């Protein structure tokens, strides 16, 4: 019997799922509704200087990286399984596309965050 390497992906899926279940909604609300519309939070919050300061702080940087990476790994894992569920069993191909895009996104996020300085 061949041991499954699924735990790696499953653990990332689970961590992302838990994180998004706990605070995903409030993040969407803050960054996508409350601040941009200026109704619940000041629009100022999203000014270049504010966001830059947040992203340059090690905590803010880490937070953003974890959110982006785990959300991606969570969603691609589900999408991969859903493809299987609806009868698209591309096997290795689908696996590469799904997890490959999550990996690319993770690297891109790391690159961007490092460039911010």
């Amino acid at each position, binding site marked *: 019997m061949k041991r499954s390497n699924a735990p790696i992906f499953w653990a990332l899926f689970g961590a*992302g*799922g*838990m994180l*998004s*279940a*706990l*605070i*995903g*909604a*409030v*993040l*969407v*609300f*803050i*960054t*996508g*509704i409350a*601040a*941009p*519309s200026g109704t619940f*939070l*000041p*629009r*100022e*919050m*999203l000014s*270049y200087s*504010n*966001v*830059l300061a*947040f*992203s340059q702080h090690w905590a803010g940087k880490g937070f*953003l990286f974890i*959110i*982006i990476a785990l*959300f*991606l790994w*969570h*969603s*691609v*894992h*589900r*999408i991969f*399984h*859903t493809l299987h*569920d*609806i*009868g698209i069993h591309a096997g290795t191909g689908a696996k590469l596309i799904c997890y490959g895009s999550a990996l690319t*996104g993770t690297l*891109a*996020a790391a690159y*961007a*965050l490092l*460039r*911010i300085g």
Partner: protein
Amino acid sequence: MSARGPARRPFVRSMEGWWRKNPYFIEYMVHEGTALFVAAYALILLISITCLARGEAAWNQWLAVLTNPLCIFVHVLLLVGFLYHTWTWFNIMPRTLPPIIMNGARVTAATITRTGLAAALIASLIIFIIAASLAS
């Protein structure tokens, strides 16, 4: 009875469209579908930091997109997806945990779900308060 040779011919049914055949499975596909919302939001954040990394002009351009009413509306849809994800995630949680014994009795599924939802609410409030304090 007369003809010889194996008479068995088990019939294997197709799984085609299985998830449409039972409300339980439809709900399952819907909650699995929230992954698209999570992915979309992760991409939005990824674009955000990429623009940020490219400098103030790029950021301001992106900010214009974010503040566009259409984009805010898209976020309202995302919010609904995330809320549904939260709800379903904590509804499944009791099935995924080992039994938790408190005061000699097993904690019920409903209690686990309620605790999860409460944790999400508290975490969200904390995040919102931090965000508000950072903004001021």
